[in-house]
């Protein structure tokens, strides 16, 4: 994978400066993503290590981190115009808040769920 970087860059040089070669970054991000996925999977083996009450928060943090990394790097939001980020974020924010409220109305959070 890493060889990609040099060859392509050498071939085409400065003519395409608007497309900086980020392949190394992508690979690094992918390694981090893989590592987080490993951690996530690890939580499943409770007999090896029990996260206890921290399980859900840990998983949610892992999930958010992966989400962020993919959206920011692979989807270029980091480098693209803010309008695009806002369009996507609007969707996420509306979805999160609206559905959280819905679930709350069903008494989803907390113990038990009276009918």
């Amino acid at each position, binding site marked *: *994978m890493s060889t990609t970087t040099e060859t392509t860059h050498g071939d085409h040089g400065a003519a395409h400066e608007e497309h900086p070669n980020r392949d190394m970054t992508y690979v690094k*991000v992918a390694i981090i993503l893989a590592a987080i996925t490993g951690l*996530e999977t690890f*939580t499943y083996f409770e007999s090896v290590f029990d996260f206890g009450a921290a399980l859900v928060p840990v998983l949610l943090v892992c*999930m958010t981190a*992966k989400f962020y990394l993919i959206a920011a790097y692979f989807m270029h939001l980091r480098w693209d115009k803010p309008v695009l980020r806002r369009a996507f974020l609007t969707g996420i924010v509306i979805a999160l808040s609206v559905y959280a409220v819905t679930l709350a109305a069903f008494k989803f959070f907390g113990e038990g769920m009276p009918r």
Partner: protein
Amino acid sequence: MAETLAAPATDAHHDDHGHGHTITGISNEKLAMWLFLGSECLLFGGLISTFLLYRKKLNSFPGFENAEISKLGAQLFDIPFTSVSSFVLLMSSLTMVLAVSSLQRRDEQRMRIWLLATALLGASFIAGQIYEFTAFVKEGLGFTTNIFSSAFFTLTGFHGAHVVIGIIILMTMFAMSLQGRLGPERAEALEIAGLYWHFVDVVWVVVFVVVYLIK
């Protein structure tokens, strides 16, 4: 005529550099894709919430606390297996972004390889999902078995359908590339297809944690 009216428009900026030939500098297609992805958040959000609600409901439903039924719920999950397919899908995002990157640097040959790799990884994810589904059905957890199963198959099925559509798009682009219709000048088209692909991956990131790992 008033002076101001004759004066040249100072704010008529023509920032025609980069991709943008529009007033925002973003191409129509890319903006459209992001808007679409924004709206997809609400779609998957709805499916995920339905699933969460019904998983919890089933557990508290009278007569359903017993072992036999809960066997027909989350206990069936084969986490190591799903972890592998999650990993496969994750890596397909890497190959996708490398394909885009290759095309941007005019390396069409390499782009085609990455593209094919992405499609293959996507296909193996789908194969894994088909295997998982058939295993569940064999265990007695069909689409119509209970509220949990309906919600589970619908959510993962919608995601699977998105992946399949993504594979079709990727293969179409692969074919176009072979025909010479996907040159570096159309790198953005590939990038946009990639956005869709990454989004489908991101949805799985959420599904994997929320559906499979959190009990």
